[in-house]
């Protein structure tokens, strides 16, 4: 045999043996065991391809932001604040930035003391800093079910135990919350905080009712529990009356002029302006705030000065009528997202089976759809990715155990162009019908959904399916699946 130059590596001492490799395992902190990379996440990574329509992202639409305005504001920051923009800033954030935060919160009727605000690198950092400040391994967090998929790895990394409480159309049911708190108390355990997204919940798409908000604040006061109120979408309401934040309700209860002492409020510029800025904030009772500040010093010292100055300049921007540009932009986003939400709801009505149900969000970015309980949306994603070229977030991502929520999915309508909403939902619907049809055949139950599914498949004549004498799907993955044009003729209107 032709031998590669054996030992060339030995001389340099760079030889990596399996033993050496395995040694790393001993070096990793115990908490890394909670940092799981799941199969589902790996599959999600595969959907980031140009030929895949993704309804999986958490993205707002940034294509509507005026390029000239962006350029002008950045030029202004560069010219007028060069040294400051290029310098470190205070850990708690720049004063001009905090003024913008106070203005945004006032828009939702929430008054805050600028001294209780900390600027963070995205809202995500607030979740991390709150856990850093409050959570020891094994501590309990109470969260909604489903919960924000992005919080799941954070909670895991801090080795928190998360008690998730199933929501209904009015958000977190407070009687169920009290039941959970009682049960924990009986075990001598006290949750460190209750994590909730009261407005247009991600991923659930539901909004906590006013009565429940009041009751939640009462419960928190009775039991002296902290609440982390995550409110990224509050200003993106497309219908219905705005509801007060938990922060403002608690501040009212405290009665000390606008500051809550049990609610940690999380806000972000990601959804009303841009996620690329990486700017969010927390408002917290001072003792908590101090710990968040110390935590942030260790994490990144301060958030970007450039983007803080950009936001400050943006908030000063007025149009010819003297209207604030940021308010107008939020209005534009709202009308765009409202239209896309309505479009997605109509498409779901048309393409998802009778077994399916979905939330009708009054705002925000997401719809949560739930299918026949025997369908696992992680598997469905594998099928939909492969055969249809479409992606969504499988429900399991929103549960700490990685098992529950298996028949649900999160769909983003806000950051997806209209054509992709139509085509994406149609493709998912086709994959669902295929699975439901198969279930029907296996259980012998006659399914009304079966025949249209077969029709659709047949009408397309997809070469990747049912190759004679093969039955394998190998070919499908060698051939790139082109993004199909939304073709009305191929779309089937189901008789319902």
């Amino acid at each position, binding site marked *: *045999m*032709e*031998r*590669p*130059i*054996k030992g*060339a*590596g*030995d001389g*340099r001492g*760079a*030889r*990596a*043996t*399996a*033993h050496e*490799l*395995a040694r*790393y*395992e001993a070096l*990793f902190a115990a908490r*890394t*065991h909670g940092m*799981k*990379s*799941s*199969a589902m996440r*790996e*599959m999600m*990574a*595969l959907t980031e391809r140009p030929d895949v329509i993704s309804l999986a992202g958490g993205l707002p639409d940034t294509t509507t932001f005026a390029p000239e305005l962006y350029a002008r504001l950045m030029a202004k920051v560069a010219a007028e604040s060069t040294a400051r923009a290029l310098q470190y800033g205070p850990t708690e954030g720049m004063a001009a930035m905090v003024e913008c935060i106070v203005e945004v919160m006032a828009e939702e009727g929430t008054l805050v003391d600028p001294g209780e605000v900390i600027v963070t690198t995205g809202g995500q950092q607030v979740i991390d800093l709150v856990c850093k400040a409050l959570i020891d391994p094994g501590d309990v967090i109470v969260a909604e079910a489903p919960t924000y998929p992005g919080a799941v790895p954070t909670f895991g990394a801090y080795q928190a135990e998360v008690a998730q409480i199933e929501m209904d159309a009015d958000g977190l049911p407070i009687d169920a919350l009290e039941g959970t708190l009682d049960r924990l108390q009986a075990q001598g355990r006290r949750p460190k905080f209750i994590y909730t997204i009261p407005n247009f919940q991600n991923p659930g798409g539901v909004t906590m009712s006013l009565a429940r908000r009041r009751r939640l604040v009462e419960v928190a006061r009775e039991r002296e529990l902290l609440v982390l109120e995550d409110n990224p979408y509050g200003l993106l309401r497309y219908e219905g009356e705005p509801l007060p934040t938990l922060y403002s309700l608690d501040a009212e209860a405290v009665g000390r002029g606008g500051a809550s002492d049990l609610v940690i409020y999380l806000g972000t510029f990601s959804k009303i302006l841009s996620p690329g800025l990486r700017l969010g904030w927390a408002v917290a009772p001072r003792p908590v705030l101090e710990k968040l500040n110390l935590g942030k010093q260790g994490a990144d010292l301060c958030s970007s000065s450039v983007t803080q100055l950009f936001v400050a300049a943006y908030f000063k921007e007025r149009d010819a009528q003297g209207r604030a540009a940021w308010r107008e932009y939020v209005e534009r986003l709202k009308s765009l997202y409202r239209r896309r939400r309505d479009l997605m709801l109509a498409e779901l009505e048309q393409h998802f089976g009778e077994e399916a149900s979905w939330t009708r969000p009054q705002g925000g970015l997401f719809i949560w759809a739930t299918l026949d309980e*025997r*369908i*696992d949306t992680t*598997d*469905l994603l*594998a*099928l939909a990715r492969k055969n249809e070229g479409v992606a969504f977030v499988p429900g399991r991502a929103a549960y700490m155990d990685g098992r529950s929520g298996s028949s649900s999915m999160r769909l983003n309508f806000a950051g997806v162009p209209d054509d992709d909403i139509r085509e994406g939902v149609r493709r998912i619907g086709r994959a669902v019908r295929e*699975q439901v*049809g*198969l*279930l029907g*055949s*296996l*259980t*012998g139950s006659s399914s009304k959904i079966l025949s249209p599914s*077969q029709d659709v498949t047949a009408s397309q004549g997809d070469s990747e399916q*049912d190759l004679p004498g093969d*039955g*394998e*799907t*190998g070919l499908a*993955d*060698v051939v*790139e699946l082109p993004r199909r044009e939304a073709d009305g003729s191929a779309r089937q209107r189901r008789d319902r």
Partner: protein
Amino acid sequence: MSAAKRVAVLKGGRSLERKVSLRSGAQAQDALGRLGHEVLPVDVGPSFVEQLQAVEPDVAFIALHGRDGEDGTVQGLLEAIGVPYTGSGPAACVCCTDKVLAKHLMREAGVPTPEFAFLRERSIKELGAAASLGAVEAKLGFPLVVKPASQGSALGVKFARAGEELPGALVGAFSYDRKILIERYIKGRDLAVSVLDGEPGSQSPGGAAGDPVALPVVEAVPREEDFYDYESRYEIGMTTFVCPAELGAETTARAQQLALAVYELLGCHGVARVDLMLEEQTGALWVLETNVSPGLTETSLLPQAADAAGIGFDDLVSRILGSAWTRPA
């Protein structure tokens, strides 16, 4: 080989095991670099053939897992364009990747493999296969394991504890492949035996490979009670590996003999990993499947087994590389 080679490391691809493959590829690249070769990393995608022809490698090192890289697709392409490559040829790849075919071959050859049935999706739609499930359940008993025929990882592997769970499990597995396997569940210890071709005689450079040897047995012990799933298989810390596995001398020898028999039976070349179960109740060994492109990541079983046999990672990679020139004509 007289000098350094231009080695294209094929990795990534579009399979569900893409990320694992990228890690295997990175490990292989490091080793090949240390061995003095010129490393040409290739992420296998739509312009794969063109890309490979452009870099003009002497040899392709296959670090792909799953679809395309392990099922003979890439091997067939490499033969077509005349690039020597590591590991098994297309026929063995097809046999090993198709668990149903592999199990039929094993059963016919008298190699113990858990009882099974297989289903094609179209047989349900077109041949009323659902009516056969009762007989399958009666024959195999619960719990049952349902697996996509060609999926290399645990993705799509489902359990059914009772009859009512079977349809959901089947639909889940059919999401990954149109052909699936229903298998009797063996409760016991999870073993893996890697097989490596022996070094060719020094007198015959470029000659045939030496007799294959079975490496020490690795046992995978899941950290959690949970099923040995995809996550735990690839993430450091989720599974504890014991190598050599703490088995009696006789069981070890039997496991290694079985692995060698399967390696020969399925026509593997260069390297393969044979997964087995040691049944708790009976002490019987059962062969589950054979993997023609075993992982080379930090936590993969093959490097650990090689290490236990005194073969360092670079030596292992070097021997796998050598398999490109010992392929029987």
